[in-house]
């Protein structure tokens, strides 16, 4: 190859003079950490789809009970146990109001002289499942978000203080956490639910009573890692106060981990709420959450599977969406995972 240099046409190349001004120029606009994270999150199809799906579920949980003409707790006994019926989709042979009665397939709406359509059918007391499912979703999401927010708040403060001040403070605080994490979550939650009046508040308290320890451990680890680095030392040398170092220098670095952790706390809280409701320790009738709806539906699984189907599907979709969003965020925000 090297011998063929002479054969190359000389005019195919032009000399570019070195420009010292140009050398310093940055060709691409600089990207902040969050822009970069957003960019890699956008590439993750599962996470984006889940984000959209969750957005839809959230909107439905807010407007669903309103667009349905029936109140979630209104009972119409004559309309009990109707299968789902949706105007347009019924022509496809599904959700057409046909159910089995005494072994025969019949249009139960015609038989019971029901003029209205119940999109998700009705339960054993003739309550509209559509508004109940979305109302229940609303309650479940509310419990999960509040529980996750409290976990985050306590965990970040506890872990931050423990990690930042270190020494004896850290020792004492960590011994307490070690004992608390030793107690199985399941046991604590059940015991606390037992002594409190059942309801949303009781579930939130039970979920947060030891739920924050995971967050505190992660935050402590991160704070420990960053506080000994040079940029913190530099800030301190320049006379920055503790609160300035924490909020201006440590927080932005720890934020990613906090977000990831919260994204995994939320499905955990949703699961536990549903779990408690399923074993009969959750909300009391007539209030509904996804868990109590699944529990009600389960009792009628043999004859009215649609009552179980809808809340179970919504619950599963929320859980899948959150896990995928969490995975996507972890890949996007965790620099260790970056390629």
């Amino acid at each position, binding site marked *: 190859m090297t011998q063929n240099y002479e054969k190359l046409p000389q005019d195919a190349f032009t000399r570019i003079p070195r420009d010292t001004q140009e050398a310093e120029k940055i060709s691409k606009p600089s990207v902040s950490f969050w822009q970069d994270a957003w960019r890699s999150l956008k590439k993750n199809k599962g996470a984006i789809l889940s984000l959209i799906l969750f957005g839809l579920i959230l909107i439905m949980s807010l407007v669903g009970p309103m667009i349905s003409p029936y109140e979630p707790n209104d009972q119409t006994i004559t309309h009990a146990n109707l299968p789902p019926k949706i105007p347009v989709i019924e022509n496809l042979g599904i959700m057409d109001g046909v159910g089995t009665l005494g072994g025969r397939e019949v249009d139960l709406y015609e038989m019971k002289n029901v003029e209205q359509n119940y999109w998700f059918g009705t339960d054993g007391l003739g309550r509209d499942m559509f508004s109940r499912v979305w109302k229940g979703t609303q309650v479940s999401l509310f419990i999960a978000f509040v529980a996750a927010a409290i976990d985050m708040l306590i965990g970040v403060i506890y872990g931050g203080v423990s990690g930042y001040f270190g020494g004896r403070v850290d020792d004492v605080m960590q011994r307490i956490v*070690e*004992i608390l994490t*030793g*107690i*199985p*979550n*399941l*046991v604590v939650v*059940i*015991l606390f639910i*037992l*002594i409190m009046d059942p309801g949303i508040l009781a579930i939130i308290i039970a979920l947060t009573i030891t739920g924050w320890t995971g967050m505190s451990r992660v935050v402590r680890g991160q704070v420990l890692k960053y506080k000994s680095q040079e940029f913190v030392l530099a800030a301190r040398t320049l006379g920055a106060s503790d609160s300035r170092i924490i909020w201006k220098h440590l927080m932005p670095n720890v934020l990613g981990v906090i977000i990831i952790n919260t994204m995994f706390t939320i*499905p955990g809280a949703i*699961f536990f709420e*549903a*779990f408690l409701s*399923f*074993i*009969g*320790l959750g909300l009391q009738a007539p209030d509904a959450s996804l868990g109590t709806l*699944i529990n009600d539906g*389960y009792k009628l*699984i*043999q004859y009215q*599977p649609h009552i*179980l189907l809808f809340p*179970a599907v919504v*619950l*599963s979709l929320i*859980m*899948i969406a*959150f*896990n*995928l969003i969490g995975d996507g965020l972890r890949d996007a925000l965790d620099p260790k995972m970056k390629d």
Partner: protein
Amino acid sequence: MARYIGKRLIYMFITLALIATFTFFLMKILPGSPIASADKLSPEQRAVVEARYGLDQPLPVQYFDYMFGLLRGDLGISINQFKGANVTDVILSRMGPSAQIGFQGMLLGTVLGILFGMVAALRQNTWVDYGSTIVAIIGISIPSFVFASMLQYWFGLKWDLFPVALWKDGFMSSVLPSIALAMFPLATAARFIRTEMIEVLGSDYITLAKAKGASGSEIAFKHAFRNALIPLITVLGPMAVSILTGSLVVEQIFAIPGIGEQFVKSIMVNDFSIIMGTTIFFSVFLIVVILIVDILYGVIDPRIRLSGGKN
């Protein structure tokens, strides 16, 4: 190492003592009476019943009686659910079915999970990989009670392949509950093994093995798989927790006479001594599992032992 284990054991006892104390006093402030139809009894009859269960003693006496009983493995007597039976005996008699479905679920889940994860890692970014990832996400996301009711509906009611519920047909009765419990371990193991395998497959000694001329299956099993397997021990703890949590609902759904089903019932009827006994039993089980996992991991991977000892 001995120091580390010793320290962990001390923590374990502190935690257990705290749980026992905590449970005991919570039970005392619990609303409602464990004595069946308590309102209908005359004060004298009530006094007789309370004396029978030691409920007439002052609180500190009850407490120390209970704690010393615990040291001897005595969890007290059941008040209404099992009419005076010893709680320890009740728990032991119900351990069989719980242990069987728990163990089968764990085994099935881990083995399938490892298989899924391995195949996914070796065939990265193919439909096999995507399929196994979807299974893993579904397994982690769908709660065991939803999955269990689905299994019961399709395999039990519709297709009549397995018994719908009850513990009467031996192994056949345990199939559906075991599958329901297996989902979480399966998903966890599959995700974990996939990540570990991909990391190991990219390491230098795999390149060396390839350069040496080792065959694909030899690399996969002899080199990559073995090293990917070790860290799986760390997720055994969360898996045990999930099996236990799952057993409460799965046993309920399939009407299996296990510990979980009895625990949920005892909550409904306020049987203090059964609730306390089972709580302590669950705690001991989980704490011991986590301790064993930590020690095992320290034994297998000396790097962990060093940092673990310092902590």
